[in-house]
């Protein structure tokens, strides 16, 4: 069965620290990859996406992610976090053979201390 794993359930860090969130997915052929963010009290928002091409993708708010095909990974990074980055982050995979449905990881809650 197709599955997506996010390694950390909770991350606590201070402002200006670097952030890296892991995401691994099970093999399932060609994939599209996404990171979504949910700020407190808000809906899920698209942070960045990978469809093809350059495996290093840049998203909004200074986030980037790297697709490593051999490792089935799509890790999210930000060099210097701000208090406003406090949110829950979800990795999602669109297994193209499965027909436009997103398989989500369990999410990682990130708390940035001012």
């Amino acid at each position, binding site marked *: 069965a197709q599955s997506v794993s996010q390694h950390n359930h909770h991350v606590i860090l201070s402002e200006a620290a670097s952030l890296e969130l892991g995401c691994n997915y099970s093999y399932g052929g060609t994939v*599209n990859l*996404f990171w*979504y963010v949910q700020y407190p009290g*808000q*809906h*899920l*928002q*698209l942070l960045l*996406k990978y*469809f093809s091409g350059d495996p290093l993708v840049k998203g909004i708010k200074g986030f980037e992610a790297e697709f490593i095909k051999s490792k089935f990974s799509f890790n999210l990074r930000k060099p210097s976090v701000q208090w406003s980055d406090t949110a829950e982050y*979800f990795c*999602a995979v669109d297994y*193209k053979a*499965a*027909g*436009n*449905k*997103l*398989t*989500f*990881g*369990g*999410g990682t809650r990130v708390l940035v201390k001012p």
Partner: protein
Amino acid sequence: EAGVTQSPTHLIKTRGQQATLRCSPISGHTSVYWYQQALGLGLQFLLWYDEGEERNRGNFPPRFSGRQFPNYSSELNVNALELEDSALYLCASSFGGENQPQHFGDGTRLSIL
């Protein structure tokens, strides 16, 4: 640009009743998706509608059904409600075709008493 809108925000039902949840996609989007976010189970895909047709279905029983109207809005119907149906139901929309990111609404919180 208005985002995906869902109604109602909250819905309280009792076991055995039926629930109807509604979703209006972003203007120009023809695909609508439904997801369930139940406590401890994460986000799970329910249904995908495109151009009025059901295109894909997740691993849910037939009492979860829906439809998409000519204006691309959608309804999710849940019949014979069970306690474990209590969850946040999220609707997402996208442009039609492949390689289109999905954009999510705020969700409907369904509580079964």
